[in-house]
C-alpha cells in the first residue's frame, strides 16, 4: 500500500507533505508533553520493533481462501494497535512516519510521496482506527469487536484514500481503484483486526501497565464525534464520484410500472442528491447539506431526550 515516486505529481505530493508535516509536528509535541515522562527514546526503539514486525508477510488466502487472493500477501501495519495501546492517535502518526521513512530506503514507498503515505497509514489509519474503537466502546460494544472494527477500518480506509489519491493524480481510474483496494485491503483488514485483538490481549496479560487504560475510558465523546463528522464529510465528498448513474431497484421498477407519472407530480429540493446546475460541486454540496441536517436533527433529538 506504499505509493512509489512518480505516481503522484509533484504539486499534489507537496500538498500531502504539508498536511503530514502538520500532523508529525503535533505528534512530536504529544510525545514531548502528553506522555507520562519524556519517552521519545522509547518511541524510537518501538518504531524499530514495528518496522521489523511489518516484515512478517502473511498469505491473504489464510484469511479468505479464494483463488483471487492466491499469491497475495499482507503484513500488519499496526497503526490502530499503536494508537489503542498508547491511547492516542498521535502515537500512530509518529510511529508510521518513522517506519515509512526507513522503508523508503528499501524502495518501499517513495520520497516525494511519503507525505501521502504518512497521511494514509499514519493519520487516516491511526485516527480512524482509534476513534472507531473508542466510539464503539462508548456504545457498549464488546471490546474485542470494537478493536477488530477499528483495526479493520485502519486498513480499509487508507486503501480507499490511496485509490482517490491515484485517481486525482490521473494514474488509476477511481471506481476500479476503490474496488481493487477495497477487496485487498478489506481482506488485509480482517487479518489486521484478528491480529490486533490477539496482540492487545497478549500485551494486556504480559504487561498491563503498558496499556493506557485510564485515558481509553476517559476519551471525550466530542473528539469521537469530530472524527466521525470528518469521516462523514470525506464520504460526502467522495460519494458523487463513486455513485452509479443507473437507477436503483425501486426506481427501475417504478419507471417500468408507472412510466413517467411520478416525476411530473413531485418537485424535489435536491433531485438525485444534487443541486441543479452546479455539476459535481452541487452533488457534494447537496450531500453535505443533507449530512448537516441529519446532525442537527440528531443533536436536537438527543437534547430533548436528555431533558425528558
Amino acid at each position, binding site marked *: 500500500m506504499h505509493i512509489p515516486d512518480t505516481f503522484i505529481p509533484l504539486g499534489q505530493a507537496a500538498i500531502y507533505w504539508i498536511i503530514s508535516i502538520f500532523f508529525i509536528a503535533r505528534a512530536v509535541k504529544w510525545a514531548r508533553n502528553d506522555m507520562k515522562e519524556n519517552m521519545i527514546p522509547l518511541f524510537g526503539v518501538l518504531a524499530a520493533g514495528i518496522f521489523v514486525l511489518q516484515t512478517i508477510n502473511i498469505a491473504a488466502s489464510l484469511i479468505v481462501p479464494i483463488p483471487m487472493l492466491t499469491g497475495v500477501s499482507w503484513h500488519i501495519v499496526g497503526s490502530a494497535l499503536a494508537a489503542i495501546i498508547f491511547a492516542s492517535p498521535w502515537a500512530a502518526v509518529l510511529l508510521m512516519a518513522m517506519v515509512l521513512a526507513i522503508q523508503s530506503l528499501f524502495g518501499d514507498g517513495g520520497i516525494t510521496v511519503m507525505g501521502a503515505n504518512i497521511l494514509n497509514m499514519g493519520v487516516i489509519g491511526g485516527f480512524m482506527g482509534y476513534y472507531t474503537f473508542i466510539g464503539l466502546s462508548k456504545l457498549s460494544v464488546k471490546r474485542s469487536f470494537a478493536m477488530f472494527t477499528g483495526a479493520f477500518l485502519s486498513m480499509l480506509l487508507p486503501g480507499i484514500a490511496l485509490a482517490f489519491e491515484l485517481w486525482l493524480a490521473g494514474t488509476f481510474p477511481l471506481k476500479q481503484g476503490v474496488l481493487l483496494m477495497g477487496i485487498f485491503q478489506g481482506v488485509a483488514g480482517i487479518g489486521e483486526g484478528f*491480529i490486533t485483538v490477539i496482540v492487545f490481549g497478549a500485551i494486556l496479560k504480559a504487561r498491563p501497565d503498558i496499556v493506557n487504560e485510564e485515558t481509553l475510558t476517559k476519551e471525550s465523546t466530542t473528539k469521537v464525534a469530530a472524527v466521525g463528522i470528518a469521516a462523514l464529510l470525506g464520504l460526502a465528498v467522495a460519494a458523487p464520484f463513486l455513485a452509479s448513474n443507473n437507477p436503483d431497484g425501486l426506481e427501475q421498477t417504478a419507471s417500468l410500472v408507472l412510466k413517467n407519472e411520478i416525476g411530473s407530480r413531485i418537485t424535489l429540493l435536491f433531485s438525485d442528491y444534487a443541486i441543479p446546475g452546479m455539476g459535481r460541486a452541487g452533488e457534494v454540496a447537496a450531500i453535505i447539506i443533507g449530512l448537516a441536517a441529519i446532525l442537527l436533527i440528531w443533536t436536537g433529538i438527543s437534547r430533548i431526550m436528555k431533558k425528558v
Partner: protein
Amino acid sequence: MHVSITEMERETYKKSPIHGIDGRIKILMTLGITVFVVSLPRMETLNFTKLGILEAYLFVLMFFSRTELSHIIARFAIALPFGLGISTLQPFIKQPFVNDFTIISSLPMGLEITREGVLYGAIIFTKFLVCITSVILLSTTTSMSELVASSRRLGLPKEMAMLFTMMVRYLFVFWNMLGRIRTAQKTRCFEIWNRKVPRKWTLEQIGYTISLLFIRSYEQGERTYQSMLCRGYSADANVYVNKKNLQITDFALLAVTLGIIIVVQMRVF
C-alpha cells in the same frame, strides 16, 4: 529474491569513492534527482532520453561504488513489483489528462490498448526506475547512522533526530531477534504457509510472535530510556553530531550531478 537489512547495511561499510562522499551530498543528490524526475512532463517522448542519461549516470556511480551486482538486482526485484504493476495497467486506462486516444488494439470485455496509455505507462515506469536507482545508490553507499547524522546536519529537528537515532540503533537488534524467533518456530515445524493446520491456530501463532516482538521492543525501549536517564538525559538533551566539513570531492560530485540535471533539462545534447 530477498535482502535483509543486515545485508543492506553490510554493503554500506565497503570502501569506495562513492562511499567516501559526505552523506549530506548523497541525500541532496537523491532528493534532487527524485524531484527532477517526478517534475518531468507526463507525456513527452523526450523524457526517455533525459531519464536514460540520468539512469546511465547513476549506474556509473553504482559501478564506482563497487556494490555487488547480485545485491543491486535483488534490491530492484524487491522495489519494482508495485510500480511495475500500476505501469503495466496504464495502456488499458484512459488517462484524464489526455484528450485524444489512438487505439492500438481492441480486446474482449471492452478493453482497449491505446498508444497514449502505452507511452504514459512506459514513461511512468522509466521515471520510477530512475527514482529507485537513486534510492538504492543512496542506501547501499550510506549507513543508516550516517544518514541520520547527515539529516541532522541538514537541519532535521532534534526530536526527530533522536527518534531516528534510537530506531536505527535497535533495528538490527530486533531483526536478529525476529530471526531467532523464526528459527525457533522452524525447529518446531511451524510454517506460516502450511494449510494443513487450522487457520485460526496459525493466526494466533502469528499474533503471539508479534506480541512477543512488541513487548520485547517496548521493554528494550524502557531499559534504554532508563540507562539514558542515568547518563543525564533530559527533555533538553540533544543528539551529538560531530562537525564535518565538506571536501572538494563532495562539492565536485554535487556539481557534476547538478550539471547533468541542468544539461538534461536544457536539452544540451
